[in-house]
């Protein structure tokens, strides 16, 4: 008998209110009450338990990812010129974008942890056994899908971290026999990484993988309901209902997960507030590295922490070549997955279940151990006492790491040789770790600089952020200098603690503050001009300038202190640098002195003083951008050192048909960097 008919038959007038009647109306037409009833009133044998919460918590985590992912999608733009830019925009400019992205980022990591817990609980409780084998296999598929989403999501910001991690991951896919190269090319959308790598990874991350996951999840849940909850044995307590008993525990677990995630996101803000610092919301939550640059080495490249074990595992096969990678990245993980897939069958044998539990725990322990090893390799410089290695380090520098020389140096003390050799191994590790930590620091500085540049009032050029970064003297200058100039020139603040040692090692002038009043004052100082910070380590040590500074400038009758001050002021002004307040009034007088043919003008050309170029560098525009670009491009030009140039290469000229070491633009970047000319954000 249908319900309306039943009500009519009972002859009682309905005493329900509007909502009650509306509910009846809906139920008559949809049968929703039965569905809700089916969903909520599942029997939990032996009562609700905390160990059952992981599945529900995973569903909650996935729903969180769907919600935050859709809203991120509303702001994200997958292309090589807009991916980093749109993620920057989400993180730093969209209201609440930092929170949205932070939840998505950390919930992804929480999902990996929850997956491990869910799997562990299922294996320990033997919940994979008949009739639940298929559901266990579905669970393994779901796990692979979640890991696939983690892997594809890592690339989407198109920052250095995601880019290089993806290069590695896709190259590993490429070593799969037969299909590998085609598979790799399909995934990255062509032979090169670019727009189509992003569109494809995005389609996988936000389309194919989650859609597949939902399909598998529906079947996983349906089978879970069909077979009922697999209770922990022995059952000692009375049965309970899924609603509200187990739901209560599930909900508390979900809230705890969300609380942890919010805690991770907000902790730095709390710390900053307690320290009385300003909190920048854009700096909270997920990290955004510098934009992906295929031309820039990225020594800080590491996979996300939950893939570190795989990264470390591959190192075990170092020296095996491609076979090692094939073995470590495909064969071993494949075997592990196969053993896991066989668990329901193995579990039927005597001791089979124990084997499964032991295997799972061993794998987890292995993963934990490999992760710890990876972290130890990267961070050991933070805790290994470098001072205790001082002797070994000194001997290493002396002998160049040569064992025979070490034996000689220690006079054949074999015990000591062995001890030092052991310390050398530690030293090698510490140095590698330090290199990694330095790379991380550099990566962080690059990332911060990119964010600074993106906030310029002119905004990001249509060609994208990389274009802007590559034209930024502040970040590119030091790299170009280190690569092309740093083998001779120092660039170190003379007041820095290790300045003296660095300057002593250099074979040309210290260019820190070149063009400034301080730099010029040092040049005109008889005690410094022939020192290592100026001409001391060059052929000019014996030159006219050094003897002029030592002999003429020290004669107070011809060069009173005020005249030297005036020259310093004039040269700083010529370089476009600030002139110190005390001598600012002397610029005009200084210009006359520099130009005068019985003073500097005797050797140096200065504007229209008539001195022929060739005997000494032309001081017109000295230290300015044009002057610097000119001397870096060609110091042998008569305008600069001409024939008396000492070893400095011409960076901007080349023989017919070959390229100069540096482009005009790169030289300009070095010049701008030396002059401190780069974009600085307004003080907030």
């Amino acid at each position: 008998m249908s319900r309306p008919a039943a009500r009519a038959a009972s002859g009682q007038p309905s005493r329900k209110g509007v909502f009650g009647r509306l509910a009846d109306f809906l139920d008559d037409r949809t049968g929703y009450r039965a569905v809700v009833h089916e969903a909520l009133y599942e029997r939990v044998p032996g009562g609700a338990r905390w160990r059952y919460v992981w599945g529900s918590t995973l569903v909650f985590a996935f729903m969180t990812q769907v919600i935050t992912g859709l809203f991120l999608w509303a702001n994200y733009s997958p292309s090589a010129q807009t991916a980093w830019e749109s993620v920057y925009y989400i993180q730093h400019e969209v209201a609440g974008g930092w929170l949205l992205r932070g939840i998505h980022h950390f919930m992804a990591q929480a999902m990996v942890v929850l997956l491990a817990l869910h799997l562990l609980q299922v294996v320990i409780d033997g919940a994979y056994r008949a009739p639940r084998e298929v559901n266990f296999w579905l669970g393994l598929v779901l796990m692979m899908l979640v890991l696939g989403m983690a892997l594809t999501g890592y690339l989407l910001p198109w920052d250095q971290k995601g880019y290089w991690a993806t290069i590695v991951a896709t190259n590993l896919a490429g070593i799969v026999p037969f299909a590998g190269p085609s598979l790799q090319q399909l995934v990255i959308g062509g032979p090169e990484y670019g727009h189509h790598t992003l569109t494809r990874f995005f389609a996988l991350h936000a389309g194919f993988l989650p859609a597949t996951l939902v399909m598998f999840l529906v079947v996983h849940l349906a089978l879970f309901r069909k077979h009922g909850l697999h209770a922990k044995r022995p059952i000692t307590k009375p049965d309970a209902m899924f609603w509200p008993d187990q739901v209560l525990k599930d909900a508390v677990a979900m809230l705890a997960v969300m609380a942890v995630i919010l805690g991770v996101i907000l902790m730095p803000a709390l710390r900053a507030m307690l320290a009385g610092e300003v909190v920048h919301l854009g700096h909270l939550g997920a990290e955004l590295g510098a934009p992906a640059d295929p031309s820039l080495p990225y020594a800080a490249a590491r996979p996300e922490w939950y893939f570190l074990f795989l990264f470390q595992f591959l190192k075990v096969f170092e020296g095996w070549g491609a076979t090692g990678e094939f073995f470590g990245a495909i064969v071993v993980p494949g075997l592990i997955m196969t053993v896991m897939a066989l668990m329901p069958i193995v579990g039927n044998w005597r001791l089979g279940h124990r084997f499964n539990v032991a295997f799972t725990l061993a794998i987890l322990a292995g993963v934990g151990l490999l992760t710890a090893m990876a972290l130890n390799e990267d961070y050991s410089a933070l805790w290994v006492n470098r001072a205790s290695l001082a002797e070994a380090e000194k001997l290493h520098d002396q002998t160049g790491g040569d064992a025979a020389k070490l034996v000689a140096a220690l006079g054949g003390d074999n015990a000591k040789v062995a001890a030092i050799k052991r310390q050398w191994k530690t030293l090698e590790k510490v140095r590698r770790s330090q290199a990694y930590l330095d790379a991380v620091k550099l990566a962080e500085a690059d990332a911060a600089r990119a964010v600074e540049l993106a906030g310029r009032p002119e905004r990001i050029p249509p060609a994208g952020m990389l274009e802007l970064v590559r034209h930024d003297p502040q970040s590119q200058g030091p790299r170009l200098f280190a690569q092309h100039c740093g083998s001779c020139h120092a660039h170190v603040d003379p007041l820095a603690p290790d300045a003296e040692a660095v300057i002593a090692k250099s074979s040309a002038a210290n260019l820190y503050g070149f063009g400034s009043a301080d730099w010029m004052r040092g040049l005109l100082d008889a005690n410094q001009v022939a020192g290592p910070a100026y001409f001391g380590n060059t052929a000019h040590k014996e030159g006219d300038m050094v003897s002029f500074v030592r002999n003429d400038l020290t004669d107070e009758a011809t060069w009173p202190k005020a005249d030297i001050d005036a020259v310093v002021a004039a040269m700083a002004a010529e370089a476009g640098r600030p002139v110190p307040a005390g001598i600012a009034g002397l610029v005009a007088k200084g210009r006359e002195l520099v130009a005068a043919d019985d003073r500097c003008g005797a050797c140096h050309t200065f504007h229209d003083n008539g001195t022929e170029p060739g005997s000494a560098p032309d001081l017109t525009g000295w230290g300015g951008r044009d002057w610097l670009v000119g001397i870096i491009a060609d110091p042998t030009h008569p305008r600069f050192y001409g024939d008396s140039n000492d070893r400095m290469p011409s960076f901007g000229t080349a023989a017919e048909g070959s390229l100069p070491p540096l482009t005009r633009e790169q030289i300009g970047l070095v010049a701008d960097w030396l002059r401190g000319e780069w974009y600085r954000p307004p003080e907030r």
Partner: protein
Amino acid sequence: MARPHGNNSAASVRPDDRSRGADPLAARREFMAKVVAVACGGLATIPPVVAGLWAFLDPLRRTRGAASFLSVADLAAIPDDGLPRQFPVIADRVDAWTGFAAEPVGAVYLSREQGSREVRALSATCPHAGCFIDLEKATQCFRCPCHNSSFTLDGNIVNPSPSPRAMDELECRVGGNGQVEVKWQKYRAGIAEKVVQG
């Protein structure tokens, strides 16, 4: 074959059997469990939803910059025959994170009478639905290709027309250097009043 955990179908145990009847304390405990479960679940769901909506509503915070006069043509480039001619409007433009320098952002029709230094500027954006209005040489009138809104060369409506108002006239001035400057502004489409779009 015996199923290891019995039949779990929902019908086998009715929740009502438990809470109804016996123990009022148990009923109260169950009620509290329901309240706390819903509260915890709800609280856990709030952050992603709030963060999502917060970010989604961000565009509402964004406003178009104040309209400014943009140089669009040299006075001499506008023949003084009273007939309108189309000129591109070039301006710096920011699209979310991208900055475009000196880019065509739209067009205006400029006209001036014989011997006059005064220029009349009509926006090429149709007040009906925002399409780009064409100048039809053959019929000597403005026509929008989307829904056939028609306007006289002065910009007035030619009836019947779907456009609720005449073409939008833009403020226009001629600088000392002979540069024609137009106040580049957008107006809301589809309404009879000429209201600046915020």
